């Protein structure tokens, strides 16, 4: 199976780090294939930023995402810039407050209060990027939840807040009652998964 994911936001939100961790989980923890690339402006903070992640069970040939199975957005600027990248019928995951979903889009839309929940739990907005990763992993199964947690532990040893943020993301999905979504396509034939369960 091959999964094409895009995460968008603004500089400083940890978007690119999130993309790296997600892809690294697939490669290092799960022994699968992944590529990660990014685009960003010259600004240190506030500029539009995006990371493309492809995760696959086979070698990845073409490394860019032209149409994404899933787009996750942490900022409304990113949502308005990148919503055209979602594959029709694909999945859109957004922050309820920072990037309210655009209802006219042809995709399955999921809003979660990532920023609000992290702020409530920790008093700050750090680790919102990890919170969204936890939600993506639980919602899509693109990587196993425990493998994502292992990756976080290796990357941030002893950082309980980081781990808690990932689990919080998972909780938000569980609490929402949304069922898991399966969206990948067969890398060999290009056929879509027939096991959509939504």
């Amino acid at each position: 199976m091959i999964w094409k994911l895009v995460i968008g936001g603004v500089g400083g939100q940890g978007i690119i780090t999130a993309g790296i961790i997600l892809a690294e989980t697939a490669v290092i923890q799960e022994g699968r294939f992944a590529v990660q690339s990014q685009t960003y402006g010259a600004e240190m903070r506030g500029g539009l930023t995006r990371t493309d992640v492809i995760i696959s069970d086979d070698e990845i040939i073409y490394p860019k995402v032209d149409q994404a199975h899933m787009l996750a957005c942490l900022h409304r600027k990113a949502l308005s810039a990148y919503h055209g990248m979602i594959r029709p019928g694909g999945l859109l995951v957004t922050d309820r407050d920072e990037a309210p979903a655009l209802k006219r889009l042809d995709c399955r839309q999921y809003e979660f209060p990532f920023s609000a929940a992290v702020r409530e739990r920790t008093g700050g907005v750090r680790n919102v990027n990890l919170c969204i990763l936890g939600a993506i992993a639980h919602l899509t199964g693109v990587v196993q939840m425990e493998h994502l947690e292992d990756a976080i532990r290796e990357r941030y040893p002893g950082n309980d807040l980081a781990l808690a943020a990932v689990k919080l993301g998972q909780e938000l999905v569980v609490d929402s009652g949304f069922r898991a979504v399966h969206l990948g396509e067969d890398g060999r034939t290009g056929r879509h998964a027939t096991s959509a369960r939504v």
Partner: protein
Amino acid sequence: MSSTTRSSRANGAAAATDRTSTGSNGSRAAGTTAATAKSRTLFVPGNEACAEGALYAGLGFFAGYPITPSSEIAEIMSRRLPERGDRFIQMEDEIASLCAIVGASLTGSKVMTATSGPGFSLMQEALGYGIMAEIPLVIVDVMRGGPSTGMPTQGSQGDINQIRWGTHGDHSIIALTASTNQALFETTVRAFNLAETYRTPVVVLYDELLGHLREKLTIPEPGELPLVERLRTGVPEGVDYHPYLIREDGRLPMSDFGGVHRYNVTGLYHDMWGFPSTDPRTVDELAHHIYDKIELRADELAQAREFYMEDAEIVFISYGSPARTARQVVHQARINGQRLGLLELETIWPFPARMVRDACRNARSTIVVEMNMGQMYYHIRNAVENPRSVFLSNRVDGRFITPKDIRRVLRIVEGQGE
């Protein structure tokens, strides 16, 4: 997937770089070791794969000036080389960077610098010196949009002909490229092997996309990839050593500068002692030597990967990361029953003319895929028997070439409109 790697042996060097045929899914031999050693499997950008390859090859000295999109290489070297007792110097500019590695190489180190187009332009003078004085050098050029400062954060393949013809005078050069991080690691090791074997600057070139693309890299065990060490003279101290006395096989044993032998090194035409000469016979011999030692080995140095080439009616030729787009198109076309094939060049210079000619012989059309205005396209046209059957699919706006871009050209070539 059908894929084979073509490589041939060139003295000791190609033995060091000879790759076995790739597996059924096209992944490299190193992929098979991924499961055995988790700790040696990394998830890194191409620039880091290149740096790891250089460290594996035995890099002992790096001088450079940071420039996007190659800066990560200097950053990694500034940390890793001192850790193992080797030297890193951040120079004042790219001119000094190349001059510094020329000097360090003469003292016996394996050396490297890394830059991008604007810096590579500044290096042309010292590059010519390296060619003339026959200094083993590895120069990494991570291509960005040009000319001039162009587009620092966007990819391009605009330096192809500058590498070959950037410095003045008749000369030859070796340039290698790759399209994946694993291949880039191996290509960097090969670059060091060829630089030491042929006493010449070798350019490793790839574009911004690969430089910043993170993917799996498995570091081979020490000894898994053979390394070529420098051929040194056996002449003892006190006996005349002729630094530029060419052996029958074209090789010149070196003596670490500052060691037991005193000799001269110059960018002027020189005799066997390394002193300037305008003697026509001496000049003629040296001019042919520095040209022929590479150009006459073009077939041996040629290395490429083939995908579905056995019965291909339309052949794509590409190199670097755009080859991945071409491979995607070919892969998809085969599922649909179209007989497309891909020749992915890994040796850019000396130009692998015979390999290209053979690959295109039975093809109805050839489509060259590259991210410039056709720099390799013209050489391929010159190499094939029917130049009119060669077409160009390119992109120069800084965006990565997509399967759609290539398929559009394919439709036109096949007379199917846009």
